[in-house]
């Protein structure tokens, strides 16, 4: 360095200082930003003596033939690129501007290695290469937001959750052919917004510039002003903003160096992303406590099995939070579960979740809550643990709830049987219920408890909201069959208002409801509506066939309103064509008056 | 005439097509009138008359006419329609910064300092190719090229410090440089019979090599301003009878040597008038001893006789002649293909042509003869 005369030195410093001050506010200029690698730079990584700022990337003469007078050689690394089952884009190796960023940020090339200095005398830096950490992307880009694909009309037509490229803000420049580059989101000179972002990531504005997720703008995750204090899984990790809504996508996703590569999740285990907050501290309700109960949908049992592209018939057995919830679209369910009135329509927490229709077709957006359940429970991926062997076996509850069945609880369609007179108002003949009217957390808010709604976990097997005994010789009580008595008035049943021998069987003989009734529905089997009205589908471990002159037979015959006959053997008694009818109900007196035009189902 | 010939074909097909289908205009006007109109239009389109400039300016009889400036081969020689061109990747013939030129047998060779290659333009067929190396010897700073009678190329590469000899197809490569590893920076080459003259600005001398063996035969010159010495000899050219002309750049003069390399005369001196020279770079000599000197400082081309008599200065009225810019390389061409000779106006009798390269990226072509 030449020795300067004093006057010139001062004048020079003044001139340089003046130029810097006039140049720009420190924020939006590269001067004094993290990319100011000169010896006077602010960060821990900087040159030891070099006082020029631009030289680390640019040089006016002798530059590489890339557009911005590039002063570095390109890395020759082959990168592992992002892969996901839900990507429609064709992702290639990074090119052009992305390679320029990666020439420092992949940790392979020395930072001081610039073309304008001989390779034997690079610029001496405090760190030779970028140190391992969040800024070192390494050559494994599969855990980073994908780049190197063309974001064009074809892509946005295929992937409906991307905005059309024409309406993406021009502040986010794409490459010459619409390619996504590092420089689409980052401006290497301007650190005004932090992380050298081109748009703010508060409320994930920069993310939703391109990603158009169904239901996000109104979702509770986007609008929540809950603070992120009290997280369970990553309690010490610093999130950029204080509230869940401000963090937006970053609550669950990590754009660079994501622990869970596919879909860039912040947690290796999928459910951790939810349980992080939904364990009683950040979010309103403690789901973690529910899924720890005896009967549960516990997502923690399996990892990396769920895939959003799975089909209900071919998927492996698993459950995750995202099987029932779409975290981008969830909304508060302020109304709560009201059995019988709104039960069938999809509510906030399950908006835009996928499901399987009653006819067996997988749909991206379920319209009804039961469709979400049918995804797994419809056709037999998951059969209940306490499988009761019955006359007619339903393989999966989808078969049980078919509207063409002889009898069914009205989940998929309203029931037409006029004879259900035990229903507690506001339920009536023609009402519809949904799965969560029976299968719910025992502490659910909708049922009077203080916990979350929904079949996350319950002390009652199989994930029932209330107690339901199914063993023979159970002493009748309000608690024993609480599940049934929630909708069917106990007094009506025990006063024999419908079946005249209920009291005799249930109280006298201590038979459970499930001995004769099938709680979901009876699929088409032998007999049809004559044999299986009123959900009659005998539990063969309690009820056995009777010996008749025509052979062993177990049969129920519906012979009219509130009358029928049974042929079976049970508790040591054999009934052969034993008829019954209810004298109180003979005649045309009906309790529910607004029935549809009569007729048996 | 290539381009017009092509247009002939298309215009004919257009006319014949129009005969087949009913058309209101076609029916109103006889078809031969339409065809002729198309022909006329295409003919005038191929030759931009505005580029022509006569030296000396009219009304004096013109001796030199500037024909065209161009940046790509397609501007000079329209390419033949190539049915395979859809499938073949088109390679642009754009030049970066041209330096030395050479012309032989219908091929114009252009050294390109920006792209570090030698362009080989075939003026007959209109095809261009870029030569970046010879048998793996990559050109780093190809500043001048010369072609001998056998068609071999001699490329002076300043940064390599070698003159690379190869055939036109890039084989039989020999790297010519002084033995002993002395610093050698060749900036210009000229060939006469089996003598290769190389201007070396490291030692400020002209080195004469044998083209057969590649050995150094003798030196001419050295540093100095006396006759026979040079300050930065940037250009060499040889006459048909073996005399050597050297543009002595920093002395602002041209020196002439006999075939035995004895000093004959020098002409030119610093100044800013007719007869003075600025910074002469490359030069070319015609068969009848007319010397064309590219002057980078005056941005013009001096025309001298080999006795030193100033004949003409090719420069515009405002001192900036379009396409002259930073003149560097000169090549004289006899027997040019029709594409170039057709540029000459009919009333000008061109004896030979001069190509001039402009360091700012374009090339110019002049026709020299007697006309009007």
């Amino acid at each position, binding site marked *: 360095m030449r020795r300067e005369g004093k006057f010139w030195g001062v004048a020079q410093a003044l001139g340089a200082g003046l*130029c810097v001050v006039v140049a*720009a506010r420190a924020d939006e200029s590269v001067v004094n930003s993290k990319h100011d690698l000169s010896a006077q730079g602010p960060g821990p990584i900087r040159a030891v003596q070099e006082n020029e700022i631009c030289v680390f990337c640019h040089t006016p003469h002798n530059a590489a033939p890339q557009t911005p*007078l590039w002063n570095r050689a390109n890395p020759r690394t082959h990168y592992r690129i992002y892969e996901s089952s839900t990507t429609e884009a064709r992702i290639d190796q990074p090119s052009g501007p992305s390679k320029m960023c990666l020439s420092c940020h992949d940790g392979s090339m020395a930072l001081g290695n610039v073309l304008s200095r001989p390779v034997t005398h690079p610029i001496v830096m405090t760190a030779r290469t970028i140190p391992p950490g969040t800024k070192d992307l390494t050559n494994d880009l599969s855990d980073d937001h994908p780049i190197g694909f063309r974001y064009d009309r074809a892509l946005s037509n295929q992937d409906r959750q991307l905005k059309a490229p024409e309406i993406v803000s021009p502040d986010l420049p794409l490459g010459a052919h619409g390619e996504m580059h590092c420089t689409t989101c980052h401006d290497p000179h301007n650190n005004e917004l932090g992380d050298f972002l081109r748009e703010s990531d508060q409320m994930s504005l920069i993310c939703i510039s391109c990603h158009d997720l169904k239901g996000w703008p109104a979702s509770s995750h986007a609008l929540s002003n809950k603070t992120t204090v009290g997280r369970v899984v990553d309690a010490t990790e610093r999130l950029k903003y204080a509230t869940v809504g401000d963090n937006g996508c970053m609550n669950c996703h990590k754009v660079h160096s994501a622990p869970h590569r596919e879909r860039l999740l912040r947690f290796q285990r999928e459910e951790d992303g939810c349980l992080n907050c939904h364990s009683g501290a950040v979010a309103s309700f403690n789901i973690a406590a529910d899924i720890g109960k005896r009967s549960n949908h516990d997502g923690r049992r399996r990892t990396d099995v769920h895939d959003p592209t799975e089909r209900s018939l071919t998927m492996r057995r698993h459950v995750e939070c995202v099987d029932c919830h779409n975290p981008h679209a969830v909304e508060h369910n302020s109304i709560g579960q009201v059995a019988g009135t709104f039960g069938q329509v999809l509510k906030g927490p399950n908006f835009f979740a996928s499901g399987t229709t009653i006819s067996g077709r997988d749909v991206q957006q379920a319209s009804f809550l039961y469709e979400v359940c049918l995804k797994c429970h419809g056709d037999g991926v998951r059969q209940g643990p306490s499988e009761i062997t019955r006359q007619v076996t339903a393989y999966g509850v989808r078969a049980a709830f078919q509207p063409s069945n002889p009898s069914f609880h009205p989940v998929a369609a309203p029931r037409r049987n006029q004879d259900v007179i035990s229903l507690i108002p506001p339920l009536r003949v023609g009402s519809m219920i949904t799965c969560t009217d029976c299968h719910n957390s025992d502490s659910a808010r909708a049922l009077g408890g203080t916990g979350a709604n929904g079949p996350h976990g319950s002390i009652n097997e199989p994930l029932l909201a209330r107690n339901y005994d199914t063993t023979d010789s159970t002493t009748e009580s309000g608690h024993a069959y609480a599940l049934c008595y929630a909708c069917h008035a106990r007094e009506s049943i025990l006063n024999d208002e419908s079946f005249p021998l209920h009291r005799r069987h249930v109280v006298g003989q201590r038979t459970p409801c499930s001995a004769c009734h099938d709680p979901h529905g009876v699929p088409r089997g032998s007999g049809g509506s004559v044999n299986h009205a009123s959900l009659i589908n005998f539990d063969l471990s309690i009820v056995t066939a009777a010996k008749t002159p025509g052979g062993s037979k177990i049969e129920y015959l519906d012979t009219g309103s509130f009358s029928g006959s049974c042929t079976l053997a049970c508790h040591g008694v054999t009934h052969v064509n034993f008829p019954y009818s209810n004298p109180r109900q003979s005649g045309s007196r009906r309790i529910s008056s607004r029935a549809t035009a009569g007729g048996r189902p | 005439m290539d381009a017009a010939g092509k247009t002939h074909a298309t215009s004919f097909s257009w006319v014949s097509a129009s005969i087949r289908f009913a058309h209101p205009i076609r029916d109103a006007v006889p078809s031969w009138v339409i065809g002729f109109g198309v022909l006329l239009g295409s003919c005038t389109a191929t030759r931009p008359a505005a580029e022509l400039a006569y030296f000396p300016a009219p009304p004096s009889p013109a001796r030199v006419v500037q024909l065209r400036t161009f940046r790509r081969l397609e501007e000079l020689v329209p390419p033949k329609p190539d049915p395979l061109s859809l499938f073949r990747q088109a390679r642009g013939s754009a030049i970066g910064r041209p330096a030395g030129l050479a012309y032989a047998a219908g091929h114009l060779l252009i050294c390109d300092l920006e792209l570090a290659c030698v362009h080989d333009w075939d003026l007959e067929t209109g095809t261009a190719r870029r030569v970046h190396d010879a048998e793996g010897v990559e050109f780093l700073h190809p500043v001048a090229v010369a072609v001998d009678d056998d068609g071999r190329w001699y490329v002076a590469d*300043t940064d*390599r410090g070698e003159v690379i000899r190869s055939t036109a197809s890039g084989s039989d490569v020999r790297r010519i440089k002084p033995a002993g590893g002395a610093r050698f920076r060749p900036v210009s080459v000229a060939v006469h019979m089996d003598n290769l003259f190389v201007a070396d600005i490291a030692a400020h001398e002209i080195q004469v090599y044998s083209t057969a063996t590649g050995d150094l035969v003798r030196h001419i010159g050295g540093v100095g301003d006396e006759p026979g010495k040079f300050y930065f000899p940037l250009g060499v050219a040889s006459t048909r009878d073996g005399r050597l002309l050297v543009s002595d750049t920093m002395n602002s003069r041209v020196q002439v040597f006999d075939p035995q390399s004895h000093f004959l005369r020098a002409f030119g001196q610093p100044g800013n008038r007719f007869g003075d020279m600025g910074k002469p770079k490359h030069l070319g000599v015609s068969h009848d001893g007319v010397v064309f000197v590219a002057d980078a400082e005056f941005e013009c081309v001096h025309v001298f006789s080999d006795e030193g008599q100033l004949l003409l200065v090719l420069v515009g009225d405002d001192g900036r002649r379009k396409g002259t810019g930073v003149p560097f390389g000169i090549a004289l061409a006899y027997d040019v293909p029709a594409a170039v000779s057709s540029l000459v106006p009919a009333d000008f009798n061109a004896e030979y042509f001069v190509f001039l390269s402009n360091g700012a990226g374009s090339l110019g072509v002049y026709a020299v003869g007697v006309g009007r």
Partner: protein
Amino acid sequence: MMLRMAFRIVVIPLFIMMSGETPKSGFEGSKHDFRKAEWAKSDPCAVCHTPVNEKPPAMPPLWDPKADLNRTFGTPLARSAGAGSGTAVCIRCHDGTVARNMIGRKDPFISREHPGRFEAGHGRKDHPVGVDYPPIDRRYRPANAVTASGSVTLPGGKVECTSCHDPHNFSGEKHMLVMSNARSALCLTCHKK
């Protein structure tokens, strides 16, 4: 003995002072100071500045008898001279022949040692010269702000070699810059980054 002392005390420092280690007066001792050059002979300024010939020539060119004998060639070189002269006069020598090449392919050892494959062509790029300064662009400061700084010039409204480089090196900066590039101040005079 006294002579030796005198030599050490007087002459050697004198040599040091005169050896060219004088950054302040940038021109002396710079690479464009051709007075030291062996080949610059009597007129070192003539390397760049066209010497003026007072006398018009006696005869016109042989083929052009009507030429104006008072005609002069070359351009007087001033920093505010017309467009193009700020670059053409530099390129004359700085094309790899006389002096270091500033256009296109460069030092071989750099490209060999930095084996990253360049994606476009074989050559190298340089800062554009001879181009108009961009009129209104948020990436660049306005032209009058640039010239108001006093060091950087835009001859004819264009960016030329002389916009950033002073061939006389009066400022004494390295690379013959018109001002110091500490903290990239020269770059940031025009580029708004």
